[in-house]
């Protein structure tokens, strides 16, 4: 875990003072809402349908039990006793009072947290692989590189009024667990001739115009990492479209320029930027990396697990993933119980997860882009005791990446055996065309739209946010609420009919194509 030094703390404390002053000026009437809006948005404070919403940054999704307990405390004291973990590895509070915002930020700063740049047309929270530091397939821990970007992007004076918001993800393995190519910049750490470098994919995204990011440069030497990022951003800041909010993301610039021309412009800018001394010395990376050293694993920890409890075994098979250290495992806690809202957790549940992390996972937790929580380093001998505690807290739903993560659909598919028969099936649902729910990247995606005052749902098939990134295709005319559940059922029935061997839904879809499913739905 990264720990703030005096400089990090001073900057976050200064932000609390600055934003408190801005809120005071607004409540006193010194500034209008038009003037205040960009200021509160720079700090993740939105005015939503029912109340103000505050988005708190969880850099690269990593936090410790002390921070997690503070998130529970804020839910209890200032909100309605729950928080919502997001696809960007952040947490949102949906019932915040403007007058409480300064106190909340002060509480967050006391545990090295903040809401800086969680909205606005700036560089947002840097996301990463939720299994970083625990997965066997990474070439390096990506989090020190994400932290370097966090510091570089914080209050970046040139890039705080970009054409549009800007999202960066950093991973370090070929398996993509962070939907890296669906970010404005996706960075994959790679090695070449024994040296570390970064592959830059630029111009991916979801929203109204989903695009998979093209590779802009296959190997940026690691000592040029920030200069190259700065060059990517400068070209975008200067030439990204500002005439139409729906065409302002970098994906549109790259689509219009072409990836090769964008890469050429970045290269030209980089040649200049590299002379400015923007990249910190290697000692800074060493300083940051030291915070992410592996915890003190027990080398003699037993590598076997007693599977005699059948319910435990089901959870084990679905939610627990292999760890690089023998005797340890990665535990996924599903925040998608049947009938619940994906990503929501009560303050009591947040406290339980904090306690479990402290007791069983070297005090570490991760938030995932699939809106679940990960305990990254759990000894296998503790798994059963931990599972029992999760059952007690209603946090043991064994449905990671199964179909049940939506209220009505979950009820239709509540039978777990039926879910397991269907296997890995990433269902992603967005409530509006802005695609917050990443419906383009779901094996099955659902988009809810408001049509003449009534709800209408579109169905998409064949998306993926993994290393085989693809975008879902709309099946055809939309459905009403019950109709969409029926349509999903017809798709899954068709899949079971067509499936060969151990194929996942996505594999079958890619093999047989779109038409058999369309036929099944609309007949």
């Amino acid at each position, binding site marked *: 875990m990264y720990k703030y030094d005096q400089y990090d703390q001073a900057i976050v404390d200064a932000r609390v003072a600055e934003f408190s002053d801005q809120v005071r000026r607004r*409540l006193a009437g010194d500034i209008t809402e038009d003037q205040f809006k960009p200021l509160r948005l720079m700090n993740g404070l939105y005015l939503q*349908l029912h109340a103000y919403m505050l988005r708190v940054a969880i850099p690269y999704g990593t936090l410790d039990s002390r921070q997690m307990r503070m998130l529970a405390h804020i839910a209890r004291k200032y909100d309605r006793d729950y928080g919502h973990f997001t696809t960007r590895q952040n947490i949102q509070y949906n019932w915040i009072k403007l007058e409480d915002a300064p106190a909340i930020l002060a509480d967050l700063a006391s545990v090295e947290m903040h809401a800086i740049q969680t909205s606005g047309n700036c560089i947002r929270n840097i996301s990463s692989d939720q299994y970083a530091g625990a997965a066997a397939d990474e070439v390096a821990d990506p989090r020190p590189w994400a932290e370097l970007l966090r510091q570089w992007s914080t209050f970046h004076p040139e890039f705080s009024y970009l054409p549009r918001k800007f999202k960066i993800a950093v991973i370090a393995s070929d398996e993509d667990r962070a939907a890296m190519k669906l970010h404005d910049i996706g960075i994959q750490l790679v090695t070449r001739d024994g040296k570390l470098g970064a592959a830059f994919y630029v111009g991916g995204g979801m929203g109204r115009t989903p695009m998979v990011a093209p590779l802009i440069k296959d190997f940026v030497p690691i000592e040029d990492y920030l200069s190259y990022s700065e060059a990517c951003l400068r070209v975008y800041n200067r030439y990204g479209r500002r005439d139409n909010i729906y065409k302002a993301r970098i994906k549109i610039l790259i689509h219009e320029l072409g990836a090769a021309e964008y890469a050429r412009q970045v290269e030209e800018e980089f040649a200049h930027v590299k002379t400015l001394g923007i990249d910190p010395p290697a000692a800074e990376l060493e300083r940051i990396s030291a915070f992410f050293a592996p915890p003190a694993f027990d080398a003699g920890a037993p590598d076997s697990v007693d599977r005699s409890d059948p319910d435990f075994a089901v959870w084990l098979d679905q939610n627990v993933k292999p760890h690089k250290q023998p005797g340890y495992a990665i535990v996924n806690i599903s925040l998608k119980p049947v009938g619940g809202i994906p990503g929501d957790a009560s303050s009591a549940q947040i406290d339980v997860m904090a306690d479990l992390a402290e007791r069983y996972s070297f005090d570490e937790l991760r938030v995932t882009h699939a809106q679940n929580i990960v305990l990254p380093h759990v000894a296998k001998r503790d798994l059963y005791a931990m599972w029992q505690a999760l059952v007690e807290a209603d946090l043991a739903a064994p449905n990671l990446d199964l179909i049940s993560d939506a209220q009505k659909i979950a009820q239709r598919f509540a039978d777990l055996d039926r879910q397991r028969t269907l296997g890995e099936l990433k269902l992603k649902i967005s409530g509006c065309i802005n695609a917050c729910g990443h419906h383009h990247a779901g094996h099955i995606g659902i988009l809810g739209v*408001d049509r003449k005052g009534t709800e209408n749902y579109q169905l998409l098939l064949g998306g993926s946010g993994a290393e085989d990134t693809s975008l879902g295709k709309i099946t055809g005319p939309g459905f009403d609420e019950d109709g969409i559940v029926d349509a999903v059922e017809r798709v899954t029935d068709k899949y079971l009919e067509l499936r060969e061997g151990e194929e996942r839904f996505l594999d079958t879809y890619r093999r047989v194509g779109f038409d058999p499913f369309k036929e099944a739905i609309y007949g």
Partner: protein
Amino acid sequence: MKLLTGNDLATGAVTWWTGECWSLHVEDAVDVGEHGEAVLTAEEGARRVNAPYIIDAIATPDGPRPAHIKDRVRALGPTVRPDLTLKPADPDAGSWVI
């Protein structure tokens, strides 16, 4: 009929113009007729409301019913969390929205 709605500046709560002040309950809302814009400007200036706007509604025996589903959801509260709406004890409250 026309209603005036917005969110309270300090708390963010959904509010409805009653002719004198702001209420959390759409049942208290009055028809502002042609005066909406004037009230809106005055109230925004007085910092009692944030981002106010005028909506269409129909009068029913149970009170005004906003024409658009978005405002019916605002009037009740989140339909995905009935316990957090203004009518947590009424299991059928959500059907009013649809």
